[in-house]
């Protein structure tokens, strides 16, 4: 387990221009008492824009009504370390609140400390005779001085590197369901997303990319005709960039630039003109080495790997191989195959870029500032310091907007035309040229003991390795080869009591561009794992809740969420006639072991005509201290809905070297009529805040599959869950 970097509160040597006084890297206070809090983590919908300032403001004892938030970049304080990497400014891996919690508290408390000292100096009393409250310091005789009046003096006092922090009973904001600070802007059309950026003299660009991932542009057959179209200013060939393994010590994702061109963008006065011209492009591409990539070929590789004699051993305890061989006749086996899927944020990827005299400024929906800077620097040959990144609200991301391929393309377009350019992908270009979540296959084998519980289990997961494709330094090395923990998230580190246990993986490398997606490997791996546990309980004839309870007997935090969800769902009482239920459990372990969030869910399916419909999902969570129960509940609701899109609808297929899906007709998202009622159960905890944004997704699909098994005996071995499985 990594120890979070201790970052002492600092302030820059040069004061920022304007009326604001910088108290720390995170806190500006104006003479009139307005408090501006820095936000280092992009707001992608998860609520960071409210929750992180809430932590700062509590220790600062700021008046929440006078708090403003601004996105900040460029300082060490804003960087966090992911697994074994150097710290960078990035949102991801459900890390923001859990990692920044103590850092923001320290910054807020240190700022409160200098404000109190400034007041004490003013009144010529000692600091411990004074206290802070809602934007004022209050002296021994009840005298009050506002933070605004104190800011200039406080900004000159040294910050205490280890200030006294509040205990939980003293919190005034943390733990409260405060309203989101961005709801009004997002309900009145005034929030600025990347697509809404306007800079002076800006042009618009639309893009057309090689259908095959390994494709190269060989000709533009009608360039003159395109240049003659209304509003068109330029036709720009774009160099291929692809997500690659990182160089040692660099920031991820690696974004390698190749000699080939693989896309053309048309730059025009208006987006519609650019889009019409891009549609009219007559381009010739060589599909390259991966031109025969197809779904049949990819699935063939999965099945080969599932049947392969040898795999890489990730975990082995007891004598699983021997027992499974000795009792071959009693082995229970299940196999699963899952497709690649796409993030499909509703705001298609886009960026506005200005390249001028070797300096670059970009505006856009960007999830990882550092990765974006590095990719631009490498691609257009400017120094990272000469690149200014302006982060807007993100219209969804789910991991997609960490990869800045679209930003680099916008910079190239601007460089080519010498003016700022906003490059926006159409939905078709966004989806077909996405950076996908990997596929996965699973083969699970077990024998049960005399009481019906697992005696020996073999869990094999195969597929395109995310770490193998993008993060080789994150692979675990063994004498048999490397294994990728993300392929077996929630399996290799699972909680059930298993005396003899074997976990193994096989990487089937593919030319499909892949990257992290919300919940990473766990949506696949936990679907396999919990479905297999359901199978074993079903075969043993033991209640699914009781079975899990027995296997978790020595895990009190796991039992707590499992019991809580069973109680809320009244599991011990028989369901209404026709209703079927499923229960699932997962402990989501943060990357690098940074956190543990416990989750258990019960789903209820009810008859609706000739089908079963998902009516209700109970979700119990132990996420440690909850900074904001309002935004946490929203993550439960939305996370389950997001998982339902994956469970019911998502599949990317491949032909002729590229993805086939183009829009929401062939890549549907969950709609409101498919959304169940959600019952959140948030358990109190003495632990500090754990990660949350990704944690409720994984149990949804296996809980539904278990309910369908209960209803009809039918085994579900794939996602999206087949529609016919819901027939009554």
């Amino acid at each position, binding site marked *: 387990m990594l120890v979070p970097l201790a970052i002492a509160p600092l302030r820059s040597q040069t004061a920022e221009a304007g009326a604001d006084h910088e108290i720390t890297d995170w806190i500006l206070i104006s003479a009139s008492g307005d408090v501006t809090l820095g936000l280092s983590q992009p707001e992608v919908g998860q609520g960071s824009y409210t929750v992180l300032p809430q932590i700062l403001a509590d220790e600062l004892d700021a008046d929440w009504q006078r708090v403003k938030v601004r996105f900040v970049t460029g300082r060490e304080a804003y960087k966090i370390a992911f697994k074994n990497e150097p710290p960078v400014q990035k949102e991801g891996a459900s890390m923001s609140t859990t990692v920044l919690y103590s850092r923001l508290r320290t910054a807020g408390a240190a700022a409160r400390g200098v404000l109190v000292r400034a007041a004490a100096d003013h009144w010529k009393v000692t600091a411990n005779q004074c206290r802070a409250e809602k934007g004022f310091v209050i002296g021994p005789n009840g005298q009050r001085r506002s933070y605004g009046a104190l800011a200039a003096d406080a900004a000159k006092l040294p910050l205490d590197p280890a200030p006294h922090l509040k205990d939980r009973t003293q919190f005034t904001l943390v733990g409260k369901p405060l309203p989101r600070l961005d*709801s009004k802007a997002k309900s009145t*059309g005034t929030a600025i*997303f990347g697509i809404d950026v306007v800079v002076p003299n800006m042009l618009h660009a639309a893009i057309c990319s090689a259908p095959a991932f390994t494709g190269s542009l060989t000709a533009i057959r009608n360039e003159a005709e395109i240049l003659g179209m209304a509003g068109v200013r330029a036709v720009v060939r774009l160099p291929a960039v692809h997500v690659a393994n990182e160089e040692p010590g660099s920031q991820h994702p690696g974004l390698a630039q190749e000699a080939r061109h693989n896309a053309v963008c048309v730059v025009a006065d208006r987006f519609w003109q650019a889009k019409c011209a891009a549609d009219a492009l007559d381009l010739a591409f060589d599909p390259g080495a991966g031109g025969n990539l197809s779904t049949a070929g990819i699935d063939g590789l999965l099945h080969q790997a599932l049947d392969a004699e040898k795999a890489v051993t990730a975990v082995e305890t007891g004598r699983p191989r021997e027992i499974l061989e000795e009792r071959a006749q009693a082995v229970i086996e299940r196999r699963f195959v899952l497709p690649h899927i796409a993030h499909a944020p509703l705001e298609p990827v886009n960026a506005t870029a200005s390249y001028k005299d070797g300096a670059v400024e970009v505006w856009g929906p960007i999830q990882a500032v550092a990765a974006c800077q590095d990719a631009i620097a490498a691609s257009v040959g400017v120094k990272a310091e000469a690149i200014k990144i302006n982060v807007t609200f993100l219209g969804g991301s789910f991991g997609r907007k960490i990869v800045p391929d679209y930003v680099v393309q916008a910079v190239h377009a601007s460089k080519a035309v010498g003016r700022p350019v906003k490059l926006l992908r159409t939905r078709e270009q966004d989806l077909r040229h996405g950076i996908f979540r990997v596929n996965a296959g699973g083969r699970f084998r077990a024998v049960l003991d005399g009481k019906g519980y697992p005696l020996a289990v073999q869990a094999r997961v195969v597929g395109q390795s995310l770490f193998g494709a993008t993060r080789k330094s994150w692979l675990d090395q063994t004498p048999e080869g490397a294994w990728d923990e993300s392929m077996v998230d929630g399996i290799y580190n699972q909680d059930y009591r298993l005396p003899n246990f074997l976990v193994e993986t096989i990487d089937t490398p593919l030319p499909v561009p892949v990257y992290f997606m919300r919940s990473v490997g766990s949506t696949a791996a936990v679907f396999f794992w919990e479905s297999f546990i359901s199978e074993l309980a079903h075969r043993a004839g033991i209640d699914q809740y009781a079975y899990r309870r027995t296997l978790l007997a020595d895990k009190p935090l796991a039992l707590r969420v499992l019991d809580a969800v069973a109680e809320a769902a009244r599991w011990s009482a028989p369901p209404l006639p026709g209703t079927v239920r499923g229960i699932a459990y997962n402990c989501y372990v943060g990357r690098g072991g940074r956190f543990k969030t416990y989750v258990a869910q019960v789903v209820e399916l009810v008859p609706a005509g000739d089908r079963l419909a998902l009516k209700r999902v109970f979700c119990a969570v132990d996420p440690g201290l909850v900074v904001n129960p309002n935004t946490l509940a929203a993550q439960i609701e939305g996370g389950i809905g*997001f998982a339902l899109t994956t469970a019911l609808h998502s599949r990317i297929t491949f032909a002729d070297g590229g993805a086939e899906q183009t829009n929401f007709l062939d890549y549907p998202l969950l709609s409101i009529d498919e959304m169940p009622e959600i019952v959140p159960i948030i358990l109190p905890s003495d632990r500090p805040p754990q990660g949350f944004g990704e944690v409720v997704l994984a149990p949804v699909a296996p809980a539904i599959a278990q309910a369908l098994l209960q209803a009809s005996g039918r085994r579900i071995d794939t996602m999206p869950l087949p529609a016919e499985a819901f027939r009554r």
Partner: protein
Amino acid sequence: MARFTLRLNGTTRSVDVDGDTPLLWVLRDDLGLTGTKFGCGAALCGACTVFLGDVATRSCSLPVTAVGNSEITTIEGVTGPEAAAVQHAWIARDVPQCGYCQSGQIISAIALLKTIRKPSDRDIDLAMSGNLCRCATYVRIRAAIHDAARALGG
């Protein structure tokens, strides 16, 4: 290029654009009204929904030539009791997460409440299923519509 005069948010605006330009891009690129969003370009997601008269309309698939003399109302220009109730409920419930789809959701919700004062869950499903939300804020959308209906006395 041709000149089009549009009745928009209670005023009149003129633009010079190609007639096949979808209303969405006229609003966003020519008139600077960026509250209306682009999501799919094919009337599949609802992010671009505006009022054409009283009808919630997908502006990404409506050429500006087809607007004619109809009054256009975007998220920036919504007024009236239904709009006030819906926006108030949206904020009070903290419906948005990323927020990108919400302009379209709000227009569709206002249109629903203008026709059905007290919508059932089924009415909401029918009226709102064309407005996709990738963050799946649907639980709160449903609750906010019921709140707004109550506030309107429905």
